[in-house]
């Protein structure tokens, strides 16, 4: 594990305590930051993007000091980065790996694909039931229409 951490230090420096979100697709890095509301966190955050990845070709990594997410928060990023890996760091060592799973219900995050949906005409946060998770398929709670992953338009 120590070599793993040292390898990463070349690009994004290690943290003492906190959470590392690895294997985020580079193109979705800023959306992940936004969904997790990292802009409101006071502690140190470092991230790197367009890093080499055998799995993804190009990946991003985010390291947040002194922050531990609850499962609900984590599940939100499953929409953007289903392959992401979460590591809980204590004293520079990985003490736990958190699994990401797509939640059953989603509130907000992406617009309803149906242009006639009420959520696209009024100030209403969309809500969805997740029908399938690979690729993700969402059914709007209001208009009942389906939004597929390829049509996601993040709010």
């Amino acid at each position, binding site marked *: 594990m120590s070599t793993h951490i040292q390898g990463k230090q070349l690009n994004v420096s290690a943290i003492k305590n906190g959470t590392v979100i690895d294997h985020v697709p580079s193109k979705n890095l800023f959306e992940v930051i936004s969904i997790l509301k990292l802009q409101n966190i006071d502690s140190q955050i470092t991230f790197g993007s367009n890093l080499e990845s055998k799995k993804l070709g190009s990946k991003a990594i985010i390291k947040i000091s002194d922050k531990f997410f609850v499962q609900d928060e984590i599940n939100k990023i499953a929409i953007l980065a289903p392959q992401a890996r979460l590591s809980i760091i204590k004293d520079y060592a990985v003490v736990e790996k958190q699994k990401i799973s797509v939640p059953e219900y989603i509130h907000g995050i992406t617009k309803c694909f*149906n242009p*006639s*949906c*009420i*959520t*696209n*005409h*009024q*100030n*209403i946060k969309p809500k969805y039931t997740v029908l399938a998770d690979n690729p993700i398929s969402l059914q*709007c*709670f*209001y*208009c*009942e*229409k*389906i939004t597929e992953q390829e049509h996601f338009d993040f709010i």
Partner: protein
Amino acid sequence: MKGKSLVSILDYQVEEYLQIIQLASEFEALKHQNILHGKVVGSLFFEPSTRTRLSFESAVNHSGGRIIGFSDSNTSSSTKGESLKDTILTVANYCDLIVMRHPHDGAAKFASEISPVPIINAGDGANQHPTQTLLDMYSIYKTQGKLDNLTISLIGDLKYGRTVHSLLMAMMNFSPKFNLVSPKELCLPVEYKKILNAHSVPFNEDTDLHTILPETDILYMTRVQKERFSDPIEYEKNKNLYVLKSSMLENTKDNMKILHPLPRVNEISQCVDSSPKAYYFQQAKNGMFTRQAIISSILGLI
């Protein structure tokens, strides 16, 4: 049903469908004459729909209730930029129940989430129109004496027709056989076929109206609209294939009845109107009794 909004036909189960049908027949027999006395119904039509609005208004008036509201968003505060939420919360102060029609899908669902009084969806965009389905069911029951084991043929625009989709979902519970007759371009969406298959409901897709007529108990006609075709040539090819003429009724069953959600354009030739099998105007009248039944049930008066 008491106090509960009616947004989608799936908000009700078989027991509730039967209860509404029973109550609608009681209203038709002129029972419960003044049952809505002292009640005020809000009627919010964010888009015009004269037929549906008059049906609801007549239902309230014939039951002794009062109705307030607007028939077009041009005469309402939504033209001043008021949000749907604010309109609902304001009007809910003045009435016991809100009937609403809105051009956007899901509007009634949203209103039902925030409204302190029950909402009846009188059509939300292309999505749902549950009172139409209940009046269709009452018409089927009245003309056939039952809902079970009927052959129901749905004709015309099966892709976009919300009344068709809702009727399929509701009647699916009564061991029907469905004939789905439409131009290829306007056939029933896959998701509905999946639901029918999952419930082992037999259905037959056809592009020819003639072949299904002899076995049909309920012939449900809908409009084939020009704007639904991406290719105008396709429309020209199809526009006369789904028109019902009186000569086509010769080999049909004696009990067969022709239903149509109206307005009709040319899909049922006027010569059919004098046939005892033409039922669409009575169907519209049944709508009034069905809406009396729905409003009274939701207000907990019956």
